[in-house]
């Protein structure tokens, strides 16, 4: 087991190293750099920067060296000092910019993950057991719609109906009158009143996908001879379903942590932008646009670390849950 863990940790480090390099290069691919963005902002404000100013700014922000030097500097700072660098845009250490938002990002994603599971599991089981029923068709239709509709569109549709029907815009995670209030039940209720929209918006794709997977897996199992044999021996339907096919069909639940977590985090980036959530999404987009490279790179790295750890957890859980996988590794 220790060797297994060690190997996984090694893979993780290698993956993160590769991600960091790719991320850094991609962020720097578009023409220009942060100083260009700064300049266009100054210009919009009616202030001009001379060529000399721009050169000085490049030196000031360390953008005068080549890309490899910048990367090496950033990377060694992270590894050796845990220092994510400075955000140009905010003129603050990146960690100070990310920290207040990371909690919300993870919270929204995890809550959404739980809700996704809570919704997808019963629906998936139902549509497998009652295949070709009205309920199954309804779940399938809604599921496909959820899969096919981009998150941001669902968010916009929600906003539209919310404005026309309820007269309020569901953005942010608190109403103006509650944002300043100290925590109590009222504020918690207010939070829940806001949280359900991003949860649904981000979760739909995941729910729909999971429902399909569960349904298909369970259908496969239900047709196996051992199910027929058990049924022939008079095992009641309920226990039969719970004891055997369901356990096998559970696998995707655990393995999904690995792929659903990045999906949720990415969903949050788009939806957070539209719904103005206090998460990492909006600042990631902003930092990419202004080529605030250390901030953008660090956010992506942090999300990658979360994802990679999520994958590791899901692998470990899967091994624990499913002997076939565990033993497969030992062979």
């Amino acid at each position: 087991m220790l060797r297994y863990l060690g190997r996984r940790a090694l893979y993780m480090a290698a993956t993160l190293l590769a991600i960091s390099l790719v991320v850094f290069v991609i962020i720097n691919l578009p023409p220009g750099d942060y100083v260009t963005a700064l300049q266009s902002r100054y210009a919009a404000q009616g202030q001009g920067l001379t060529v000399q100013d721009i050169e000085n700014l490049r030196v000031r922000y360390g953008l005068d060296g080549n890309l490899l030097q910048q990367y090496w500097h950033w990377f060694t700072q992270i590894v050796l000092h845990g220092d994510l660098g400075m955000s140009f845009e905010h003129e603050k250490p990146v960690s100070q910019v990310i920290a207040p938002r990371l909690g919300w990002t993870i919270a929204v994603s995890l809550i959404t993950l739980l809700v996704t599971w809570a919704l997808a599991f019963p629906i998936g089981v139902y549509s497998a057991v009652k295949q070709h029923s009205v309920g199954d068709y309804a779940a399938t239709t809604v599921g496909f719609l959820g899969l096919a509709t981009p998150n941001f569109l669902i968010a916009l549709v929600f906003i539209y109906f919310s404005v026309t029907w309820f007269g309020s815009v569901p953005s942010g995670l608190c109403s103006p009158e509650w944002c300043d209030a100290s925590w109590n039940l009222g504020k918690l209720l207010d939070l829940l009143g806001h949280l359900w929209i991003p949860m649904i918006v981000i979760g739909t794709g995941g729910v729909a996908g999971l429902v399909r997977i569960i349904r298909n897996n369970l259908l496969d199992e239900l047709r196996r001879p051992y199910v027929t044999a058990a049924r022939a021996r008079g095992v009641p339907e309920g226990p039969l379903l719970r004891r055997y096919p369901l356990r096998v069909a559970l696998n995707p639940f655990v393995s999904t942590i690995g792929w659903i977590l990045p999906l949720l985090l990415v969903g949050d980036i788009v939806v957070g932008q539209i719904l103005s959530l206090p998460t990492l999404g909006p600042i990631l987009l902003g930092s990419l646009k202004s080529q605030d490279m250390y901030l953008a790179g660090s956010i992506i790295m942090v999300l990658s670390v979360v994802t990679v750890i999520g994958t590791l957890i899901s692998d470990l859980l899967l091994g624990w849950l499913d002997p076939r996988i565990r033993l497969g590794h030992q062979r």
Partner: protein
Amino acid sequence: MSTQQPRNPSQRSALQWHPALTRRSLVPASGAAITASAAGCSFFSTENDSAEGGGDKGPEAPMLAERVEAGDLPPVEERLPKEPLVITPAESSGAYGGTWTTAVTGAADGPWLWRTINDGHLLERSRDWTEIRPNIAVSLEPNADATEFTIVLREGVKWSDGEPLTTADVEFAFVNVASNPELTQGFPSELASIDGTPAELEIVDDYTFIVRFNSPKPLFRDDMAAGTSGQRFTMYPRHYLEQFHLDFNPNADQEAIDEGFDGWVARFTSKGNLWNFMWENPDLPTLLPWICKKPISDADYALFERNPYYWKVDEEGSQLPYLDEVRYNIIADVETMFAHAINGDYDFHSRHFNDNAHRADAVDNEGNGDYTVVDLESTYSSDMNLAFNMNHQNPALRAIFKDKQFRIAMSHAINRQELIDVLWNRVGEPAQAAPRPESRFYDEAFDTQYLEYDPDTANQILDDAGYALGADGVRTAADGTRLEFTAAVADDALLGTIWINALDMIVDTWAEVGVQLHIGSQPRENWQVLVNESDFDLTVWTGDGGNIDETTSVYWYMAAGPGGGAFFGRQWSELYTSGATQDPLVEEPPAFITEQWDLYDQFKAEPDEAARDEIFKQILAIAKEEFLAIGTVRGQGAWAVVANRLKNTGGAMPENPTYGTPGPAAPEQWYIDEN
């Protein structure tokens, strides 16, 4: 009546979610009665304990009176300067209280804060922009030849922490900030003589200082009433910022590095170097009407609360501002922001979504959202000016773009009326890149030359100029260069969508005269790179300098001006502004360009205003004669949503970055009347 609920801090900290500092201690509950639920179990209460300020009018806001009573603040008469600046309200004198809610897209959106709650210039412009009057300075007197200016600060003005503003702050700002090349990139031109030599500063006493130039600088007065320029002396609270400055604290560098910055410059900048960071640091003492409580880089919203030491009063002697707070919700997506706006969630907002495309929806929802759409006066010469790049790297293309006959033909080949009918909601008029009728520099002939849509004339001109029509319908120049160009467009600028659509239509009408146009649409940052490197055929931008800022945003009239200068001659502008170009100059500027530069130098040094305007008219006459850029449509201006409960905004005003809409409408005297 009002009962404050006891709060259990351990429960709050146990949750660990609360990102904001609670303002509870600062804003005692008043006004609305709050019924207490069972004391001691406030977590299970569903009552809202964030209290609104507000109340009747006296010499100061009730929320401050309570702090005075509690001994946290000196009385209002000690907080105000000896002679506070008296503001005449736009409509009526107001009442204290309330929150002005508006929105920003994020930390990069500082300009909106700069426009809304900015203050502290030495002088200020009147609402109609015609008059320059005292602000932080009570006087600014030039000597006879305008080389020396004696400035007297308003005595007794205090920073928002109660420390007095004196010439010590001015000295710090000039010597340690503006003259420090690490903190200020390039010496600020408003503090330099015409030839670029830094001015001399002489401190006379606590409130008087003299600024000396080596040659006449009559526009210094105008500069001191303008946005950033006028704040150079009064934006740096010495008593607070000294500790971060290497000149005063030898350990500043190490301390900054220990705190995670990459050096003292980064820390100083982050604590309070010029405009962006006034919104970021709650500890920074300022002269603004509202001071930062929750910075803009925080997650949900930024909050600004009244400055207890603000130095302006209304006619009855009541300290301004009337509004308790300004709240900037952070809404990254413009459509979401617009949904909020039509839902009536903003009290005043005139940014991001206030274009033609959203106007009709905004007007439709006026009743619903209890707001009014107020038209802002456009100051653009046209909403989309076209510039051909006369500094193009390619000599053949450069030669075409420099041909005035070619540009005239291209102007005749634009169907402006069709653009107005299709894209500008039928509101607008054809116009060239020339000052607007309301400008004192208006010249009808300049404004209307080559406007009519006339493909025959255009074809004729191009034929005569030697651009022969090829077999594929595209003309070629005498040297064989095809007349096929790409327009670089920043599609995410406020008018970006309409530009793309307009160019789409121009593609067709130019094709009729044998010119093939492609549209290179891209994000603003990428567009900026192309423009900076002079690597584009033609580009479009708003026609700044149509009114109000004719003599400063000159870049449609000559190769000069802010933000890198003219689009038609980027390198020439650079040559004029910096005296040299970064990349080798592709071509020496023609005589008329240097003539304009000479005139502009004279303009800047001429003390007499009437004579100055005459000089500028000569610059415009050259621009007219040379037809440097092509205008299209002068459309309706932008607009603002103004909540019906918000008073004293004073109706229409110009929309212009130099004007800084709505700054000159004096938000400090806006107030909320719920009736």
